[in-house]
């Protein structure tokens, strides 16, 4: 049971029911979402009362829409708060990025001048790094579709997937698939050129 005195099943029964029990469950859920948002978000968003109220309300609607998808793998409120944080953070990202176009973010030099590889940290590994990066550049040009290149570069430059999706007329999951496929193609191209994960790790420290 959580601090409202409900277990997962009670939440589901009451929220899908009617009358005073449903109303009480809705009010408690909204309050819990608001509390979760206040704690999970940072200023200035968490100080913006109007934003927090709107986010809690939008989240409540989203949680109710998805009730049938709750699998009971966590506490109900944990699941609901995870949805509310996605709703709120997606909106904050949208506000931050809404006037940035894909063309602008992926334009040549949008990240600053293309800089030579920094060999100063690991001078002994610079030759290998350079060869690896040349192979990567070649693979980006030869293995990726134009759409994959755009999505991947936009993502590397910090554009949220929701915004990439909006501009591509797509959705976040489709953009994820696009960039996942791109990463897989690049990985295979590096492997075909003789590079394994250990080489990438030793050259780039991941």
């Amino acid at each position: 049971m959580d601090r409202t005195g409900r277990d997962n099943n009670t939440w589901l029964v009451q929220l899908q029911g009617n009358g005073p029990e449903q109303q009480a469950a809705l009010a408690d859920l909204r309050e819990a979402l608001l509390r979760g948002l206040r704690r999970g978000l940072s200023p200035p968003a968490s100080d913006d009362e109007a934003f927090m109220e709107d986010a809690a309300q939008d989240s409540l609607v989203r949680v109710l829409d998805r009730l049938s998808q709750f699998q009971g793998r966590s506490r109900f409120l944990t699941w609901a708060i995870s949805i509310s944080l996605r709703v709120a953070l997606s909106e904050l990202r949208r506000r931050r990025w809404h006037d940035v176009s894909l063309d602008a973010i992926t334009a040549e030099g949008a990240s600053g001048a293309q800089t030579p590889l920094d060999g100063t940290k690991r001078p002994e590994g610079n030759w290998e790094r350079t060869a690896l990066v040349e192979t990567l550049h070649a693979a980006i040009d030869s293995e990726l579709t134009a759409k994959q290149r755009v999505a991947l570069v936009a993502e590397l430059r910090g554009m949220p997937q929701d915004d990439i999706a909006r501009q591509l007329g797509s959705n976040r999951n489709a953009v994820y698939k696009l960039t996942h496929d791109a990463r897989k193609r690049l990985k295979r191209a590096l492997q075909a050129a003789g590079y394994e994960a250990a080489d990438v790790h030793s050259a780039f420290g991941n």
Partner: protein
Amino acid sequence: MGLSAKEIEMLMQLIGLTKDEEINCEQCLALVGEFAERKLAGKSISEGLSMVEQHLGVCAECREEYEALQVALKELED
């Protein structure tokens, strides 16, 4: 499309973490609550949930949402 050294480094790190089979953001959202609860409780992560960990490594948005969830849950526990 020229990439900066920092972007190349980020891309190499992402490639290093890439798996043939990955869950997407929607699937991550369905599982991240359980993942966060287990992490907070110091419990081990099952094979199914390791897919969440992998996704969080390659998806900046889901990682940001997970980090916020961790903070929210920690505070709610206190």
